């Protein structure tokens, strides 16, 4: 770009240079060309707004409808009310008018809106999945970047890992359903089964994120360690992985956020509970599963539970994602 030599602005960024170039020429542009240029830029900006607007609208709707129960301490400490359907029916004036009065006296005000079992279940299933997928994923990435490198096998694994990130999450659920739930019957439905399904989902994400980070570790570090006589395995554990740690943590957290939000692989392998279950065995529930099943229940109380669970889930997922991005930005190795 020789133009810069005649009129050098102090360290211009690329876009500023373009601005200067197009702006300078702009004065002699024909009306049609100038219009097209401006119009296309407006369209690009507009496409961003078109996508952002529904997103903001959704956040607003979810908060408006779900924030109230979440702010109550009971939400975090109480079991999920099991009789929402009955109390919804009892309070339903239309049904009474039609002569279908259930005759029950469940007062909807007496129902305590609690979600503790689902909050605990979400943490438990994601914890189980992380314990399985993160170590395995990091070791897999170590193979790809430290041993396999550009070899045929490593390239193939790398390729299939990318492909695996595109496998629908519901398939992971079906897979665990066939190998874990069907042989064990009802007792097979548990937080552990959900953890297995989520681990399958997280594994390729962790592998690829970790490998990207290991690749950024300068070879000079490995060579320095090797020159001191350190074995490859020890170099990897004490030099390479620590150097890439921030990126690995950030990538793993993104996988955690993704897993926490998943419903499809969880719903039919986790079973059901309305009481807090701290064990990997036995029926359990997650926030995402609750959102779906309460929506299916349909009454006003159930709907309130669904919206509350949505606020809680979005909160957990967004906080995890933002922390991951913050770590990635704060500790990037250049």
């Amino acid at each position, binding site marked *: 770009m020789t133009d810069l030599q005649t009129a050098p602005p102090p360290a211009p960024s690329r876009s500023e240079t373009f601005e200067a170039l197009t702006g300078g020429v702009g004065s002699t542009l024909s009306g049609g060309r100038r219009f097209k*240029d401006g119009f296309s*830029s407006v369209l690009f900006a507009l496409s961003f707004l078109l996508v952002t607007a529904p997103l903001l609208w959704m956040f607003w709707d979810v908060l408006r409808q779900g924030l109230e129960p979440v702010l109550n301490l009971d939400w975090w400490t109480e079991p999920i009310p099991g009789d929402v359907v009955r109390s919804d029916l009892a309070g339903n004036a239309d049904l009474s008018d039609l002569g279908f009065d259930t005759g029950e006296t469940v007062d909807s005000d007496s129902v305590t809106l609690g979600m503790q079992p689902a909050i605990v279940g979400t943490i438990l299933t994601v914890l189980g999945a992380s314990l399985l997928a993160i170590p395995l994923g990091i070791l897999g990435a170590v193979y790809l970047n430290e041993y396999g490198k550009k070899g045929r096998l490593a390239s193939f694994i790398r390729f299939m890992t990318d492909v695996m990130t595109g496998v629908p999450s519901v*398939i992971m659920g079906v897979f665990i359903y066939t190998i874990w739930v069907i042989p064990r019957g009802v007792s097979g439905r548990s937080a552990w089964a959900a953890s297995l399904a989520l681990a399958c989902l997280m594994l390729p994400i962790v592998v690829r994120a970790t490998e990207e980070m290991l690749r950024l570790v300068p070879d000079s570090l490995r060579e320095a360690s090797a020159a001191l006589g350190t074995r490859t*395995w020890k170099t990897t554990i004490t030099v390479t992985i620590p150097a890439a740690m921030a990126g690995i943590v950030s990538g793993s957290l993104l996988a955690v956020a993704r897993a926490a939000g998943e419903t499809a692989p969880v719903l*039919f392998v986790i079973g059901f509970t309305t009481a807090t279950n701290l064990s990997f065995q036995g029926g359990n529930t997650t926030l995402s599963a609750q*959102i779906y099943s309460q929506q299916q229940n349909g009454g006003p109380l159930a709907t309130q539970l669904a919206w509350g669970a949505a606020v809680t889930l979005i909160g957990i*997922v967004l906080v995890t994602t933002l922390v991951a991005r913050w770590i990635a930005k704060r500790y990037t190795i250049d």
Partner: protein
Amino acid sequence: MSSADLTPLTEQGRGAVADTAFRVVALLSGLAVLVILAAIAISTSISAWPAVQDQGLYYFFGTEWAPSAGKYGIVPLAFGTVLVSLIAVFISVPLSLGIALFTTEVAPDRLRRPVITVIDLMAAVPSVVFGIWAFYNLLPGFQSLFNSIADAVSGIPILNSIFGPSSGSAYMSAGMILALMITPIITSVAREVFTTVPVNDKSGALALGATKWEMIKGVVIPHSFGGLTGAVMLGFGRALGETVAVALIIGAVPNITTNLFAKGETMPAQIFRQLSEASSTFRAALIGLGVCLFIITIFVNISARRIVAVVDRRVKGD
């Protein structure tokens, strides 16, 4: 360094064993991805086999999916899955390319990071949240919108079969929500593709007097065409497998129709809805849907990744 630290160096044997052991463990972990993919294919196929035995070729070519009548033809569900994904891609691609061009070429520097952050956060929103939001807050609006469109075109021959009466839950509703959900992935891949365009080519076009738009049209787009195809296919693959949001708003009626505003059903949504209650042939048929979906998405993703990889190599090669 003290002499104590140096002692392991003299013990060649132990170090070599640890090295080999670590290498093997890492290799096995790397192979885990392949093992899991193979296990998915084998285990689900075995569980789905009874349905194929029971239904024969009808399973693959049958046009009726009616569990209560014992009929399990997957064509209506496959039709719904592809239709919804196509709608999503058609809506999402122009928007995604617009956003990607906005962040790489048009937006001022200080706007780029925030725009990218917003799109990334969008990818983090759980599918089920999109689903209940659309179900409670959008479907009534969609219903009146779709019906007024249907009324407007009711006299026009072909259009009136595409835009028919609606109850809100529809292929179109699901497609529109899916479009929002696949926009982040198409945008991020497109962004990567656009950043591989050589700066010299772009500056050259501008130096010749091209406007920014002419530079994009003449340099950026032609250079990125292959990569963009890959990006679109990745988005399509994501749309094919999207489950919960679609399940909540599509209406749960397996339906081969030209009416985009009619209720429908997709393969993942049907699995999701029915698998926990199903047994015997129905269960096998649902797992079979999973096998078909697995094969389709693997195929789409392999093609997409291949295209992206070829483009990558070409760019890095020169």
